[in-house]
């Protein structure tokens, strides 16, 4: 032991305090760096030197630079990050279509439906009034426009959500590669003779994993030697040590493309349970798809139910020609049975039955005796469209033909009135229909003949005089039998598409309340996830965050230690000076 021993000890202290100050400086520098975990220099005393029976300390050294982190908290934050991103994406997506569903100022579909049926009620009460007729047409067109607009807006948003996935998937693939790369770098840094704790690399990796969890649902599993494995919630691995798998879009039936692994094209299970991509896919495949289905169902049921009533009536206009609104597969209508034609959306609703055809003079009196002729449809024997045309042509004063898949009934100078359809043929093929519809709400419209002439809106029906009287008209201008039938659709539960039977208003209200509840749930989820995120971040800050004041105190502490070590050196130096003085 000598004076030099003190110098050596003081020198280790100078070096160690300086390193500790470096750590503090790094902490202060990263006080506002997102994801940064506070570091702490762990000081230990050097191995002592034995001199006889005495042990002399050899100073101090930095044993470790510890990263202050709670791994369980980090895992919880990772899960929260994914769920928050999903909830926010869903909330924003739903908010973007909210105007489609109306507001109190413009209450939307239900009020438009109400307005349509209110106009029909007015028509039932004054069937002879041309102005009321025009109002019904206007209200019907407003309704169909609103339904098709809603359908378009929802479909557009669905497509937009689909398009938004691609760039996010590219970003997710980049992050997967970067995480694998960091895994490799961390492993190399923390192994071997020159190993050190790769705190900053770990911070970087954690930040990348958090970013990834904001895109897709991931599960994090720690492996040996500083490695990290990422899995999908379904257990498929995404990253293992320094190997990353890539993701891509693959077609899925007739629906939108799903996400699968590039290497084997197998769907990544559970990947949509979190993150922005999960939110977009939930929005696209669950929420918007559900609204579109409900809207399609509303349009289909409303169109068919109204048409079922309308085809049996007649308006104030003298109509001698009807052309079916739907087109049969075979241009001549001579191949498929009417109930089996794939081109006709509601062909399956056609049953064995009949409808009446009345051929009338200009004054409404019947041309034939008896006034009405029954045209039969038999689904068992497979009545074809051409068969119906032939049967109609056999009636005196009217002819029918099938051209380009459409049935045309032509009375020439005679007025033609249809009625009493028990087969649903007229409604399914849209002969004298009110609405035209397809398989989706997008094709929902007012029948072109009605749109061109509101006088064709059916209000009355052909009623043969009782007792029979060929001098009396079968029609009465204020007969509202058909109009009452149309009005009856308002509150009648029906189902033509296999959905639960419900009235049109109930369907519209259900659509709006479904959306409202989804929005409420999304808002609540965002509130919960945000509160959870805030609480977790606060906890993380409490453990891993940098307190500048605290660092300043430590700064002073190490500064003082440094100064003290320097003093030891100064003292030792003086001691050496004194010693040297003796020699001189």
């Amino acid at each position, binding site marked *: 032991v000598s004076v030099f021993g003190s110098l050596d000890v003081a020198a280790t202290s100078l070096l160690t305090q300086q390193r500790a100050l470096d750590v503090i400086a790094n902490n202060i520098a990263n006080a506002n760096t997102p994801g940064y975990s506070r570091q702490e220099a762990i000081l230990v005393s050097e191995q002592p030197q034995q001199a006889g029976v005495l042990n002399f300390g050899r100073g101090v050294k930095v044993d470790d630079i510890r990263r202050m982190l709670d791994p369980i908290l980090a895992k919880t934050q990772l899960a929260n990050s994914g769920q928050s991103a999903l909830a926010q994406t869903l909330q924003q997506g*739903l*908010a973007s279509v909210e105007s489609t569903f109306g507001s109190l100022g413009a*209450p939307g579909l239900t009020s438009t439906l109400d307005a349509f049926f209110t106009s029909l009620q007015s028509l039932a*009460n*004054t069937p*002879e009034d041309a102005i009321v007729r025009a109002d019904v047409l206007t209200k019907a067109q407003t309704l169909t426009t609103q339904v098709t607009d809603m359908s378009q807006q929802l479909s557009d948003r669905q497509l937009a959500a689909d398009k938004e996935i691609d760039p996010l998937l590219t970003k997710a693939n980049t992050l997967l590669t970067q995480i694998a790369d960091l895994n490799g770098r961390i492993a190399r840094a923390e192994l071997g003779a020159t190993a050190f704790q790769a705190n900053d690399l770990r911070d970087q990796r954690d930040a990348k994993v958090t970013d990834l969890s904001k895109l897709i649902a991931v599960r994090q599993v720690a492996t040996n030697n500083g490695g990290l494995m990422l899995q999908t919630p379904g257990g498929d691995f995404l990253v293992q040590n320094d190997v990353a798998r890539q993701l891509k879009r693959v077609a899925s039936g007739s629906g939108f493309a799903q996400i699968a692994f590039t290497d084997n094209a197998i769907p990544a299970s559970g990947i949509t349970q979190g993150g922005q991509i999960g939110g977009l896919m939930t929005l696209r495949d669950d929420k918007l798809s559900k609204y579109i289905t409900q809207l399609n169902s509303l349009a289909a049921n409303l169109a068919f139910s109204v048409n079922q009533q309308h085809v049996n009536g007649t308006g104030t206009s003298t109509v001698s020609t009807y052309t079916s609104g739907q087109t049969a597969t075979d241009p001549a209508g001579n191949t498929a049975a009417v109930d089996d034609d794939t081109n006709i959306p509601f062909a399956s609703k056609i049953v064995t039955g009949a409808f009446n055809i009345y051929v009338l003079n200009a004054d409404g009196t019947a041309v034939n005796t008896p006034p009405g002729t029954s045209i039969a449809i038999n689904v068992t024997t497979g009545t074809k469209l051409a068969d119906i045309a032939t049967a109609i042509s056999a009636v005196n004063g009217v002819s029918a033909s099938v051209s380009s898949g459409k049935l045309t009934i032509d009375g020439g100078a005679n007025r033609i009135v249809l009625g009493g359809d028990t087969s649903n043929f007229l409604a399914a093929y849209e002969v004298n229909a009110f609405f035209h519809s397809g398989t989706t709400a997008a094709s929902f419209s007012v029948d072109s003949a009605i749109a061109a002439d509101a006088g064709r809106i059916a209000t009355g029906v052909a009623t043969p005089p009782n007792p*029979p009287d060929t*001098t009396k008209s079968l029609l009465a201008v204020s007969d509202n039998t058909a109009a009452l039938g149309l009005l009856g659709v308002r509150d009648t539960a029906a189902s033509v598409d296999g959905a639960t039977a419900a009235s049109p208003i109930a369907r519209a209200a259900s659509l709006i309340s479904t959306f409202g509840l989804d929005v409420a749930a999304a808002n609540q989820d965002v509130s919960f996830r945000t509160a959870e995120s805030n609480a977790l971040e606060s906890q993380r*800050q409490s453990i891993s965050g940098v307190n*500048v004041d605290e660092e300043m105190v430590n700064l002073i502490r190490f500064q003082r230690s440094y100064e003290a070590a320097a003093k030891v050196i100064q003292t030792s130096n003086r001691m050496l000076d004194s010693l040297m003085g003796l020699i001189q």
Partner: protein
Amino acid sequence: VRITTQQIFDNLLLGIRQQQKIQADGAAQVSSGHRFTRPSDDALGFKKSVDIRHVQAGIKSSLNGLSTATSRLGASSNALSQMLPLIQRAQVLAVQQSNATLGSSERQAAAAEVTTLQDQLLALANQKFEGESLYAGTATSTDAFNTAFNAGLATYTQGVNTTISVTQTSNPNGVNDTYTITLDTTGAQITNVTNSAGTDLLAAANGGGGSVTLMSGPNTLNLGNGVALSANFNGTAQPNTDGGTLAATGANATGNINYVGNAQDRVAAITSTQTVISNVRGDETAFTQAFSSIKALKDALTANNAAGVQTALGQLNAAGDAMTELTAKTGGRLSAVTLRNQVFQDLQVQMEQRRGQIEDADLATVAASLARSQVALQAAFSEMARIGTLSLVNFLR
């Protein structure tokens, strides 16, 4: 607990955001007057609001329907009440003219007045409301009654004997009846044509022969009531007496007032499933009796027939009673509609109140909340400015 600088700023920022949301929501409620305006504000509240608005639309529509029914029944009732004095005046004239001491000239003068009454009655019965005939059922585009002669339509139903086919060729008196045609046992002669009262109308006609021997082709049958039939014989006699029936309907004699509307009531839709009858039809007995009794009086006066006037008086009394009854019945329908109208109006008020409870903002609560939030926000801003000075760095100079 360890507190970091970041935590302090984060918490302050969070608090400011929350208070700003309260300010934004409060401002939206105050400016709109509603607790919510979009589904995302309050999904269940919005749904309830939509439901109530639907009910309100239904009520409004029902009130419109009831208004139509009220107007139509009111106009019908009004016209009916004007008919009653006309019948009463005819009754007075009938009482006066039934006096045997009065002569032809007085009765002719009275007949002229009765003709005026008849015209007025017809004008009232053909009254239109908003351009539509009130009493014609749903055939509102034409008058409910006309006075034009109509030979009517005869429909022949073949009997067991299929050798003949009968048509009506002439009906100058506008008779509506059903005729049964009977042949002799050889089927070569038509022996009887009896009306629905069982009277053989062939007996006194055709030269008093009482029967018509059938020749091949059309054979004329002149009946006692002026009607002429044509029996087309195929030339081969069939030994069966059942020659079938001929039913004549829709005929109207000159001078008669005939209902030409239809038998369908005009119903007004109150809801999608409920309707009320909103009209009075001209084929009601009151109209038939009114017109037939006035005509009987006019005919009796024109013919200076005191006994006939007496008979017409009896008919007029019955017509007056029937018209009073019909007016009362119409008034009853009108009252029922008015009562329902009141029920719907009460319901409308209730629904408006319910909607208000759901939709309207509680302004006092919102104002209090805004004031509270404003204080909190000001405090947060102040704290944000102050916290910057509380750092050890500021003291280490």
